């Protein structure tokens, strides 16, 4: 084994240029694989976390637009009934017994938290200009449990909301548009036409323009008085689970038992997640292509080496090397090329990832992002090296087998 290794080493070092070219193929393939997958999963994670900030694991609400059986079909269940342009029933989006539902959901061991909520459209008055937006009435401590609001606060503290009935926590984008700061008062107009003065007790930034530019949080009671509804008026319940991948299944259960629409995050964000899948497919197919090309390179170079070394192989066999020894010599060469090439590829991939993560990437108003999100996951590096070495092993196996099968007499006679 040691001897075959030594012979392989001498062969590799005798033609350094050729060896380096073969290694570069692998290096390039693995390096690109690492850079690509780090960036792609970084992007995927980023969009997923954005998704999670903007939508709960499960969202329960009264879907008033849901199709319902017509009165006609109740009266005449066996006839043929045609109803065109059926309109939704005149009912409020209120969830009945919302606080009991919340209590029940919280008792479920799979649930981390459940937060009742109601939302209202409002206009924020900025001098003569009215800005469209909304106010969410929430139990702020519960909301923090679900969406980790505390870490997104830019100024003020979320506890201030508990002690201040007319306080709101405003999105930074909205605050900027209104030219308002912490402690300022803003005037809002409710959909019913009333005006109300509220005090900014904090500002938050989710990183998603669609939220930061329009949303404020208030206490549930504040939101109820904006809408002029009785206490107990709740329109939505947000649920956070211990394992978010169970969301689809649990949502179905909740929908069945409470008879309100329960939407899981995957359904709510299916477009986002399709993007993730497509990015993954592209990443893996590009990387595999690169590695296959590198594999063909190694195959070619080894084939050529073996062709040039026919005489050496014959003499090795004549002096007592078995086919197995000869195969070992060439397999070791391809594995060394694969291993060294892959290791260099990991380094280059890491370097590229660092460069990409430092490249500025203006996300604009919509997404608060100034650099490319890159994930540094040791797993990718492990996959990279396993991938690189196994490709070269396969590419080296066939020429090595050919070398092992060389008949020395044919070569020695041929001269």
């Amino acid at each position: 084994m040691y001897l075959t290794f030594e012979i392989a080493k001498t062969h590799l070092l005798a033609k350094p240029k050729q060896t380096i070219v073969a290694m570069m193929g692998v290096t390039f393939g693995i390096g690109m694989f690492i850079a690509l997958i780090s960036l792609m999963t970084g992007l995927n994670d980023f969009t997923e976390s954005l998704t999670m900030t903007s939508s709960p694991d499960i969202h329960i609400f009264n879907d008033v637009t849901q199709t319902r059986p017509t009165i006609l079909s109740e009266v005449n269940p066996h006839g043929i009934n045609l109803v065109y342009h059926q309109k939704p029933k005149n009912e409020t989006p209120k969830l009945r017994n919302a606080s009991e539902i919340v209590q029940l959901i919280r008792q479920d061991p799979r649930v981390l938290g459940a937060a009742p909520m109601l939302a209202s459209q409002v206009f924020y008055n900025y001098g003569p200009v009215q800005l469209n937006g909304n106010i969410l009435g929430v139990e702020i401590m519960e909301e923090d449990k679900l969406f980790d609001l505390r870490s997104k606060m830019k100024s003020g503290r979320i506890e201030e909301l508990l002690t201040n009935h007319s306080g709101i926590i405003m999105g930074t984008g909205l605050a900027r548009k209104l030219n308002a700061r912490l402690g300022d008062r803003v005037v809002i107009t409710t959909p019913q036409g009333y005006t109300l003065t509220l005090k900014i007790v904090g500002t938050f930034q989710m990183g998603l323009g669609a939220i930061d530019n329009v949303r404020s949080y208030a206490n549930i009671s504040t939101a109820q008085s904006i809408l002029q509804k009785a206490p107990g008026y709740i329109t939505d319940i947000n649920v956070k689970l211990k394992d978010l991948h169970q969301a689809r299944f649990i949502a179905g259960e909740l929908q069945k038992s409470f008879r309100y629409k329960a939407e899981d995050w995957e359904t709510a964000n299916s477009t986002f997640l399709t993007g993730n899948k497509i990015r993954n497919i592209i990443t893996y197919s590009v990387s595999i292509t690169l590695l296959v090309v590198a594999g063909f390179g190694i195959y070619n170079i080894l084939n050529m080496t073996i062709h040039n070394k026919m005489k050496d192989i014959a003499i090795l066999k004549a002096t007592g090397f078995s086919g197995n020894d000869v195969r070992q010599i060439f397999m070791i060469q391809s594995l060394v090329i694969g291993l060294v090439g892959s290791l260099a590829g990991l380094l280059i991939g890491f370097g590229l990832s660092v460069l990409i993560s430092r490249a500025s990437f203006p996300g604009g108003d919509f997404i608060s992002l100034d650099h490319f999100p890159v994930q540094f996951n040791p797993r990718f590096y492990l996959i990279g090296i396993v991938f690189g070495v196994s490709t070269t092993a396969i590419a080296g196996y066939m020429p090595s087998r050919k070398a092992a099968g060389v008949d020395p007499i044919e070569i020695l006679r041929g001269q």
Partner: protein
Amino acid sequence: MENVLATHNVNKYFYEPEKFQVLKEIDLIVRRGEFLSLVGKSGCGKSTLMYILSTMDSDYEGELEIAGERLTGKGQDALARFRNQHIGFVFQFHYLLPEFTVLQNVMIPALKLRKYSRGEIESRAIEKLKVLGIEEYAKKLSGKLSGGQQQRVAIARALINDPDIIMGDEPTGNLDSYNTHLVFDIFRELTHTYRQTIIAVTHDVEFARNSDRVVEMSDGKIIRHP
């Protein structure tokens, strides 16, 4: 004297382009310390016979025995091990590994055999190079040597494992007369001083005449067998 090699009724056929009998009922006995030349016209089958004797060709009928071991019917790996230990080769075209130094070339078969430690192998290799008068080139790449020097390296390599037989396929076929004499004298000394058995296929009439025994072949048969 002790027999070192014996064949019994060896027949060999070529199947391409059509079936043709190359060797016919070869019975040959070689004794230890003998310097034997195998001669004959081109195509008489002497090289084919030598490849069978060297165990590299195992596709024949009949029986082959070297150093008291019956080799007919053994597997390729077993034969490779046997060659490593018992047979040394000297070819017409030197056949050294060009990327390795002279010393490495001589050492490789011994490293493969692993009978001695690396240090011992190295000192043995240097000793063999000294016997052949080329120890000063030990650290040179073998590809850089002249033809005569390369052939002496090949002989040193053939000797490294103290084989029972050295086989030469036209060992002087590619050398000028000076080097031919040199190689011949080395062979002569090996057989007479060290009782080394040598079988050499040759075209060189003078070379053959000066060896201990000449076996002449024609049309696949041994016709002169003193």
